[in-house]
Each structure stands twice: as structure tokens, then as C-alpha cells.
């Protein structure tokens, strides 16, 4: 309980600081940073906690966004509702993916997730209602429903998503479920033999992970106002999520937060000062560096070589 209060307080401070600076750019850039915190945290639930590497991040992310595109076109619902819908859609896809890949491990699982992302992209590209390969335009209102600009509203929404994601991740870590996932990660055969319902827990992990990614992706059409498949289905989301979680440290909820804040901020700065291509070079380079030299990530470095639960 105390943690949650602190978390909300921290979020309020972040929001307050952003407002105080008063530049729209802060909200624009901040939104992206927050989006990646949510993505990295969501990825880590399946990747770091359970040991299953998901390369199909873009599928869940983009499906959340496309849910918004479709619902906005059909009904024009309030964005928070569409975000929940995006979460449900991507959560169901996560459940389906978990079921289809249940007997796959390691690289085979990773490749299957990669394949799933391409299949999802192919289907969306062929679905004209949401614009197919040509894309769709989303009208972004100028003013937010509360006060201030719409972009400030998007920033606030994403802040909420981040708070929820971090709370879920931390709760998972300490719960019975979290222990089960750790057992699966360390030795799935032994986990099954000690009573852990490995399939059921894996399905829970893929569903939660997918749902959070979907929620993180849902507001994006309003952010960029023109949404085509390449905006959502981009392998960059996968490498970013993976790199941020692994560079930050996959053992706890703090890792993806640290990794995402650092990496996303650096990328925003680099985009403005150098070029936008350099981002992926940085991400790739740092990922390789950390994976070779500091496999436990920044959190791992700070905490010493070996980390175990309290």
C-alpha cells in the first residue's frame, strides 16, 4: 500500500514538473518515454520473470493501436475506453499466442512470436476498414477533455498506464504467481515436478504482458494522427523493449523502468541533435555491450553480482 502511494506521488511529481516547464515538446517527448516504460515493463513480465523472449512486441502494440482506429471510426468512444478495449484485444491475442506456442521454448518460442507479428501485420495490411496498407487518418482534438492541450492529456493517460504497469509488475514479483514464473524461468521441468502449473501460468503471463502492450499502443493513433501498418508493426518496438528491459535489468520491476527512461531519453536527445537513425544503432550497440559485459543489467551492477529474492 505504501509503495502504491509513493508511486502515485512520484507520478504526480513527474506530471507537475512537466506542466511547470510548460513546453508542449516535453509532453510529446515524455509520452514516448512513458510508452517505452510501459512496453519494457510489459515485455519483462514474460521475458525477465518467466524466461520467454517475445519478439512479436509490435503485434500486441499495433493491435492495441488498431483497435483504437477501428473503434474510433465505428463509434468514436472516449480514449480511455478504447485503451481498455485495446488491452482486451491484445490480451486475448496474448492468450492465443500462449496457447499456440505452449510447447515451444527458447529460440523456437522467440521465432514463433516473430512469425506471429508478421502474420498480424499481413492481416491488418489487408483489412481495408482500418486503412489497409494506405493507412488511416485520426483527427486529434486540440484541447484535452479536462483542461490543457490534448497532448498533455495523452501524456497523463500514459502516466496512468505506467503507474498501473509498474504496480502490476511489482505485485507479480512478490506474489505466489511470481515465484511460479521464476521457477518456470529457471527450470520448467523441475517447476512442473514441484507442482507449478506451468502452462496455466505461462498463459497468464502472456495475457498480462500482451494486454499491457496493447494498452500502451492504444493512444498512439491520436499521437501521430496518421496511422499505417509501419507505424505500429515495426521491429524497432521489439528491440527497444528487449534492450530497455535487459539493459535495465530483468530481475525486477525497477530494471525496465531504469532502462526505458535512460534509453528512451537518450534516443529523444539523439533524434533532435544527431539523426533519427542513430537511435537504433545506440540501442543495438548498448544491448550487445550489456549482454556481453553486464548480463544482469544496470540494476544487477548496482546490486552486486548475484541477485536473489529477499
Amino acid at each position: 500500500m505504501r509503495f502504491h502511494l509513493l508511486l502515485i506521488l512520484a507520478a504526480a511529481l513527474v506530471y507537475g514538473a512537466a506542466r511547470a516547464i510548460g513546453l508542449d515538446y516535453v509532453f510529446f517527448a515524455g509520452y514516448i518515454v512513458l510508452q517505452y516504460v510501459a512496453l519494457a515493463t510489459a515485455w519483462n513480465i514474460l521475458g525477465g520473470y518467466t524466461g520467454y523472449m517475445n519478439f512479436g512486441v509490435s503485434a500486441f502494440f499495433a493491435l492495441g493501436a488498431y483497435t483504437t482506429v477501428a473503434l474510433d471510426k465505428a463509434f468514436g468512444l472516449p480514449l480511455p475506453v478504447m485503451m481498455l478495449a485495446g488491452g482486451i484485444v491484445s490480451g486475448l491475442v496474448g492468450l492465443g499466442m500462449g496457447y499456440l506456442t505452449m510447447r515451444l521454448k527458447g529460440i523456437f518460442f522467440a521465432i514463433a512470436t516473430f512469425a506471429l507479428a508478421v502474420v498480424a501485420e499481413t492481416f491488418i495490411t489487408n483489412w481495408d476498414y482500418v486503412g489497409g496498407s494506405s493507412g488511416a487518418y485520426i483527427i486529434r482534438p486540440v484541447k484535452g477533455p479536462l483542461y490543457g492541450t490534448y497532448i498533455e492529456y495523452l501524456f497523463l493517460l500514459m502516466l496512468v498506464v505506467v503507474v498501473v504497469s509498474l504496480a502490476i509488475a511489482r505485485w507479480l514479483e512478490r506474489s505466489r504467481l511470481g515465484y511460479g514464473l521464476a521457477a518456470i524461468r529457471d527450470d520448467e521441468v523441475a517447476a512442473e515436478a514441484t507442482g507449478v502449473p506451468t502452462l496455466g501460468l505461462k498463459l497468464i503471463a502472456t495475457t498480462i504482458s500482451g494486454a499491457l502492450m496493447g494498452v500502451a499502443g492504444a493512444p498512439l493513433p491520436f499521437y501521430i494522427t496518421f496511422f499505417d501498418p509501419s507505424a505500429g508493426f515495426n521491429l524497432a518496438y521489439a528491440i527497444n523493449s528487449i534492450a530497455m528491459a535487459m539493459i535495465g535489468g530483468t530481475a525486477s520491476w525497477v530494471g525496465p523502468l531504469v532502462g526505458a527512461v535512460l534509453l528512451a531519453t537518450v534516443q529523444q536527445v539523439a533524434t533532435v541533435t544527431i539523426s533519427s537513425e542513430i537511435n537504433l544503432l545506440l540501442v543495438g550497440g548498448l544491448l550487445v555491450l550489456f549482454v556481453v559485459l553486464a548480463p544482469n543489467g544496470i540494476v544487477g551492477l548496482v546490486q552486486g553480482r548475484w541477485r536473489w529474492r529477499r
Partner: protein
Amino acid sequence: MSGETLLEVATLGKRFGGFVALNGVDLRVAAGERVGLIGPNGSGKSTLVNCIAGALRNDTGSVRFAGRRIDGLSGHRRARLGLARSFQLPRPFRSLSVADNIRIPLLYAAADRGRDHHDGAAIARRIDELLDLVGLRAKGGRAPRELTQVEMRKLELARAIAAEPKLLIADEAMAGLSHSEVDEVLALLLRLNERGIAIIMIEHILHAVVSFSQRLAVLVAGVKIADGPPRDVVRNPDVERAYLGE
């Protein structure tokens, strides 16, 4: 010790492609009984254990536990019913502490047998109990990789015991241990049996398994060739030829 049947394996068959690993194996274990299982390498002992515990599915035959057919159940369900196994090569949860390794079966396998997984204090006490039982209390906070060979074996056993089994399958728990270490593990298993836990001991160390078992079964090339009191089985000419003559 009651004579009621706890585990009943009937005409169990398992093949891998063209290779027949188990060919119509029968095995019966009564509640609280101590059964030894021996056989040369490649005879199918591990396959049998895997089929009983649920790591593999048998092709033919059946496995019954406490009167209930379990060969369709997944491994974790069988563990929850009270069927625990230790692994030949210890498989600890590497990123968890020794204590947390024991926590897992307490949270899961033992959950259905009155172990309340919400009661943190009770679980902590139980973990300490189990650590004491195997003499690992001092190393509770360490990582599994810091343990010695015999300590890893003990952790492996402790984890199986934590599941509160009615039947424990100890798969070569003493391999590679010194004489005194073998005695330690033997004493531990006997103590467990005194509490009413049936034990299937799979071993190559003949003197240990003969002195431990009330009944000895011999598996050769996927077929059970002997099953009876250890003294008699050991003197059986087929057994001598197939196994002891090596």
C-alpha cells in the same frame, strides 16, 4: 504400514520412434512401502520414473495413484496429488535462494494438502524445518551454485519432501557420493519412511538399495525381470546374469 496399494503401474509401455524403452512393466507400491528399483544403464528406469511422475506420457498401460488413474494428468497435477520425485542430476532453481527453492513446492505442490500458501509465517517456519531436516539451514540464503554436490542432492530431496508426498521417487540420489554421504542420505530417507511416506529408490549402489528396500524390482531392457525380497532377487540367476555380472 498398511497394505493398501498406493501406486499401481500396469503393463506400461513407452517407445521413442522405433526404440522400445518400456515393454509392459508392472509395478505395485503399497502405502508406506520401501521399494528399490535397479537395472543396468539404459534399462528404462528413468523412463519409468518419468512416466509415473508425468514428465512423459506412456503409450500403453496405465498408472494409478491412490486408486485414481493419473496417466492423463500433467506432472504438476500428479505432484499436487502427492507424488514427488527428485532428479538424477539435481535441477535447482538457479536464480532463487536455497530457501526459495523449497518455497516453490510449499506454494504449489503442497497447496492442496492443507498447506495454506497465504500464511507467510507458517511457510517460513516450514522452510526452516525442512532445511534443518537436510542440514542446510545455514545455507538457506545462498545460491544453489554455492552448494557442494551432496548439498545439492539434499536440496533436491528437500524440495521433493516439501511437496508433502505420499510417494517419493528418489532417482539416483546417492550417485557419486562418498560412503558417509551415502549413509546420510540413507538415514534421511529412512526417517521419511518412518513418517509414512512410501519411497521408490532407484540406485546403482547395491548395498544401499538392498539394505533400504523391503522389496526390490529389477528392470532390464524395458522389462521387469524380478520383483521380490531383496535377498532373493539378488540371488536370482537372471538378475545376476543381466546386472550383477557387469
